[in-house]
């Protein structure tokens, strides 16, 4: 209570700046007067009496100091004084301040951006209850679909037979539908088909209405309910609560809107947000085909929660046992492959890649900040050295060392606070731009939350301490006498320079490492862009017009299949008739769009279609004649498929080189046969290899079937034309209105649609490129600062040298030799560490190879150019030394 009372009074005094000076002065006066009077009574002269009174009273100034210390808050007062002084000092050298601020702004800004993304992608758990206990089940290998785990019957078997999960839900994450609502235009949306217990398993509560539950499922097509995402509800239904209970059409089938998901729930995938959720039992209405009863349609992603006390290890063993059981029971369809558990959220297995990427970029960003700190430390140290006379004077006048260190640290903290604030603002703007840009594949909102601000602040203060300690240490260890004498003693001189040299060396090493990294990234990107994709997406457009009526595409409707083929033909002819279109074709799915998996191939004469008997599991595409040419896939030998290949003629196929080599080695593939989907099929052509699932894959076998001989289904039309996609959409709509009126047409350039696949390489290149640029800038400022400082310190010496007849090369070497040596040493260290960091880089960049001579050469050249550029100005200054002017000046 007493202490609090006192604190309050002091805070009040501090804030109101009320001073008891007057009161103390008066009290002292009256005290001295009384004492003097008494002394006079005791027989002293007036003068002596006053002197004795003063002696007895003590040092009035010291007492006044103590009095003031008791009165206000001396700590804060001194701090304020320091801050004011620091402001004055910083304002006096604006160039230094601006350089320091920009350096920090870049360093801290880069870190905050990286941390913001890291925070959003990795640190934020999914918005479901108990996210730590939510697992996604994946195959050990073989499966290449990004999300898919099992067929629906297999999922049911897993769900019923397991003893380790408290609950298991499944969903199909690639559902697409045309949404019709009242008389509004039909729009294309995508979402999830989920089991009834999905929402209950995740523990999500609806924002409006209700969710469907396991009890709503009563066999196929029994639950025509749809849950809308918050985004779709807001954009299409104007956040109207009245929509709940009304009926909308999904692919022409009526579904009742039962509820709206909360805005923070976007399914279990961070990069793929569904627009809607429908019960999986109604999937046929949406998909147009039945996968609930097929063990070969691997469509379901399985998620589940473990029972309390069960380890993931136990659960995996349990699942493996079930898989082995299933393989015995269904040898034709189930291969008994082991399963494993991952945490959902980052596109299945890409989690590790994304995690590795983000962590590596974080390390690099921290390195940038470290380089920035080294840079600032040497700048501050140089300044402290220049101010040594001032500091010495202050020590001599009785300022304590601690007080001076405090002053220097205050300056550092202020610079870093201002730089950090600027960095945060920059990062905030940048993240906002990132959120809006289409750079991100799928959707991801990077929000700047308290955690990001906290990290920004921590980095700011941390760096302030890092670069503030160097000059502070210097002052702490210096003697005022030496400093007053001006030129420091030679040994001291050397030692202080050694510290600064070390800082610059470290800075250059880090910068070289970063420049190397960014060069590696750029090389990787160039390679990725020129990697043999097997297709030529440039100048081609993808046209989506799903004309198959729902339900029409079921396998048994062969007559209908003919109709579909006829329509395909008509669309392709219409597309080709548009001026400017050079080629058109259709394919079931373009490469690298995920969700595909191998289809087993059996040798001719096989009677038992067990998976164990299959010889190959190639990716299978259905395509129209002309697709290969349109996509730019070269036909190496044989012929293209034609419309004359029908279900009544022999089944034909075009295979790729890898398929041919794996099956028949050097023997020509044309004329060879195998069994695919129950049909004896003859190879009529061999096409070049390509990438089918992702860029990193090894050559995979692939087979192209004529669409006129296979099950029908949605097709993507590929149109090669120089016209803009939007123009193309209008032209197609006009041309197709006769064949298929009111079909929603989406046109996208093929390159754009591949952007997602190239995203990691692009993001890595962008990130590393920016880091490299920042590093290069830091290297320039570091070398420039060092060289400029060197020259300005040694102006006098250089002047004398010139006066004594030194030649230009000698002056040059005296001026910039040191920074150049440091540049060389630092670069070498950086390059070596770059080579050792190749694993780190390999994780980030496709085909990264820091030992690549181009990269090494490029890094050396860059650093050399930077060094020359940075020391050019100081060197010129050194050469322009006018000895007579200089002598007069000093």
């Amino acid at each position, binding site marked *: 209570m007493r202490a609090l009372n006192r604190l309050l009074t002091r805070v009040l005094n501090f804030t109101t700046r009320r001073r008891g000076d007057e*009161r103390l002065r008066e009290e002292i006066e*009256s*005290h001295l007067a*009384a*004492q003097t009077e008494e002394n006079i009574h005791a027989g002293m002269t007036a003068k002596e009496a006053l002197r004795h009174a003063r002696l*007895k*009273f003590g040092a009035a100034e010291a*007492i006044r100091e103590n009095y003031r210390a008791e009165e206000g808050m001396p700590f804060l007062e001194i701090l304020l004084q320091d801050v004011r002084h620091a402001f004055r000092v910083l304002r006096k050298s604006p160039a230094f301040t601006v350089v320091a601020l920009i350096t920090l702004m870049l360093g801290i800004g880069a870190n905050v951006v990286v941390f913001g993304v890291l925070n959003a992608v990795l640190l934020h758990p999914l918005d479901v209850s108990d996210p730590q206990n939510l697992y996604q089940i994946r195959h050990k290998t073989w499966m290449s679909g990004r999300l898919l785990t099992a067929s629906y019957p297999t999922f049911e078997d897993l769900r019923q037979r397991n003893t380790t999960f408290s609950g298991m839900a499944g969903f199909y994450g690639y559902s697409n539908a045309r949404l019709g609502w009242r008389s509004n235009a039909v729009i294309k949306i995508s979402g999830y088909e989920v089991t009834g217990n999905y929402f209950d398993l995740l523990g999500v509560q609806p924002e409006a209405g209700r969710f469907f539950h396991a009890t709503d499922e009563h066999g196929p097509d029994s639950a025509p309910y749809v849950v809308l995402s918050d985004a779709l509800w807001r954009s299409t239904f104007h956040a109207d609560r009245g929509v709940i209970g009304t009926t909308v059409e999904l692919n022409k089938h009526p579904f009742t809107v039962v509820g709206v998901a909360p805005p923070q729930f976007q399914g279990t995938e961070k990069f793929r947000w569904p627009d809607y959720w429908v019960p999986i039992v109604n999937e046929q209405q949406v998909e147009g085909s039945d996968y609930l009863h097929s063990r070969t349609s691997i469509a379901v992603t399985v998620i589940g929660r473990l029972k309390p006390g069960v380890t993931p290890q136990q659960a995996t063993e349990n699942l493996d046992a079930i898989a082995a059981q299933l393989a015995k029971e269904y040898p034709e369809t189930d291969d008994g492959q082991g399963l494993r558990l991952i945490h959902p959220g980052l596109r299945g297995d890409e989690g590790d890649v994304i995690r590795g990427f983000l962590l590596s970029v974080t390390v690099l960003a921290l390195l940038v900040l470290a380089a920035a700190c080294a840079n600032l430390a040497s700048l501050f140290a140089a300044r402290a050295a220049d101010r040594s006379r001032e500091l010495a004077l202050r020590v001599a006048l009785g300022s304590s060392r601690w007080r001076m260190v405090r002053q220097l640290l205050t300056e550092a903290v202020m610079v870093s606070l201002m730089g950090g604030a600027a960095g945060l603002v920059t990062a905030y703007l940048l993240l906002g731009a990132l959120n809006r840009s289409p750079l991100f594949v799928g959707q991801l909102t990077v929000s700047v939350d308290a955690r990001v601000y906290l990290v920004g602040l921590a980095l700011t203060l941390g760096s302030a301490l890092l670069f503030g300690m160097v000059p502070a240490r210097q002052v702490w260890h210096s003697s005022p006498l030496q400093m007053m004498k001006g030129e420091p003693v030679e040994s001291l001189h050397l030692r202080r320079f050694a510290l600064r040299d070390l800082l610059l060396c470290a800075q250059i090493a880090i910068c070289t490492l970063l420049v190397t990294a960014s060069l590696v990234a750029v090389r990787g990107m160039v390679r990725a862009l020129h990697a043999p994709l097997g297709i030529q997406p440039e100048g081609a457009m993808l046209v989506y017009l799903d004309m198959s009526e729902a339900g029409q595409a079921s396998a048994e409707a062969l007559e209908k299949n003919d109709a579909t083929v006829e329509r395909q033909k008509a669309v392709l002819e219409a597309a080709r008739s548009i001026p400017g279109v050079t080629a058109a074709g259709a394919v079931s799915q373009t490469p690298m769009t995920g969700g595909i998996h191998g289809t087993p191939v059996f040798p001719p004469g096989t009677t038992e279609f067990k998976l164990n008997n299959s010889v190959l599991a190639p990716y299978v595409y259905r395509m129209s004649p002309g697709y290969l040419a349109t996509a730019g896939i070269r036909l190496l030998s044989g012929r293209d498929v034609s419309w004359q290949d029908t279900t009544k003629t022999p089944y034909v196929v075009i295979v790729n080189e890898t398929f041919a080599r794996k099956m028949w080695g050097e023997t020509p593939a044309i004329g060879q046969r195998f069994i695919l989907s129950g049909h004896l099929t003859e190879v009529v052509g061999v096409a070049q290899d390509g990438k089918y699932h992702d860029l990193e894959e090894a050559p995979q076998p692939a087979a192209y079937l004529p669409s006129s001989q296979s099950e029908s289904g949605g097709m993507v039309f590929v149109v090669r034309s120089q016209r803009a996609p939007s123009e193309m959409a209008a032209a197609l709509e006009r041309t197709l209105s006769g064949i298929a009126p009111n079909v929603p047409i989406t046109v996208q350039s093929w390159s754009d649609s591949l952007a997602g696949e190239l995203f990691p390489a692009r993001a890595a290149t962008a990130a590393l490129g920016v880091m490299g640029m920042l590093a290069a800038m830091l290297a320039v400022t570091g070398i420039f600062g060092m060289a400029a400082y060197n020259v300005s310190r040694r102006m006098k010496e250089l002047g004398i040298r010139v006066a004594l007849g030194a030649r230009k090369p000698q002056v040059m070497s005296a001026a910039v030799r040191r920074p150049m040596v440091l540049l060389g040493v630092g670069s070498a260290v950086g390059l070596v560490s770059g080579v050792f960091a190749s694993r780190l880089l390999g994780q980030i960049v496709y085909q990264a190879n820091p030992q690549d001579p181009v990269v090494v050469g490029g890094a050396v050249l860059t650093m050399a150019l930077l060094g020359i550029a940075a020391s050019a100005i100081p060197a010129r200054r050194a050469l322009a030394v006018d000895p007579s002017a200089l002598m007069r000046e000093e």
Partner: protein
Amino acid sequence: MKQKKDVQQGTLALMLLKTLDVLGPLHGYGIARRIEQISGELLSVNQGTLYPVLLRLEQEGAITSEWGPSENNRRARFYRLTCAGHKLLEVEKRDWEQTAAIIARFFEVKAKDLA
């Protein structure tokens, strides 16, 4: 050096409180003189050091002060003990006596007492 000063300050505050307790309202000079007299001129403290201590005690609410005329009609600031000050003095006194008693016992102890 610093430690010694702290102790002095603590004792000085106690002396000051006791003086005000015994003699009633006094001004700074008066307090200084009393302390000198009572301590038998053994304690040589700069009289000025009193004032920061007085300020602190006042901030803590142990004493209050107001201007008033001194014996020889000069304006002086008179300090007076408050209720809180009386309580504080009691507590401090007990503490001090306890400490003194403990120390005294240590001085009285002889080797044979501990055997």
